[in-house]
């Protein structure tokens, strides 16, 4: 809610900050998760597409995957598996956290087996 000349209006959060001459503090999180060697980016894409079907899941030009504003990227590969970076802005906190936890639970279990 923003008050102008004794009138209250509803505006977007970013617009409210602009009108108060304040700038947003950007928060980003980057976490790592280790996936088993058998998990290719295609398998990962299909899993994310199925699990987050209400979101925009796509391949980025550099080979990484994107689910709305959450980025899933390879950071290193070895015989043990693939290290992935999962990165998201605070605006997509619930999605980012949920995606990371899903990858940790699902693929860490496969890795143990």
């Amino acid at each position, binding site marked *: 809610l923003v008050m102008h000349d004794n009138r209250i209006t509803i505006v977007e959060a970013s617009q*409210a900050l602009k009108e108060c001459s304040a700038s947003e503090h950007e928060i980003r999180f*980057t976490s*790592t998760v280790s996936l088993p060697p058998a998990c290719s980016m295609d398998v990962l894409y299909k899993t994310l597409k199925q699990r987050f079907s209400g979101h925009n899941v796509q391949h980025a030009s550099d080979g990484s995957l994107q689910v709305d504003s959450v980025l899933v990227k390879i950071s290193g590969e070895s015989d043990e598996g693939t290290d992935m970076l999962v990165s998201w802005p605070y605006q997509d*906190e*619930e*999605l980012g956290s949920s995606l990371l936890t899903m990858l940790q639970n699902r693929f860490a279990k496969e890795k143990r087996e």
Partner: protein
Amino acid sequence: EEEIINKHPKHYVYGNLDIEDFVRNLTKHGVTDMKVEDTPGGHIVHLPSEDTIIQVEEGSTHIFCEGNETLRKKLRDVLIMCLPKF
């Protein structure tokens, strides 16, 4: 199954982080093993035992974690607590 995700953040944060206030609050919340370095653009808070780095700059903060969600959420909550918000 499909996830139901809330697409709006709980808070909108703005302005800059007071690094001393942040470190003080981290300590208060049990994060004690940390090193703070000054950088040209701000500060880096390093948590060596957790392999975690917090990069603080003017108007932005980036938390790099090794997948420890409990720790990340604690750092997130302390950060939000220390920033002006609505």
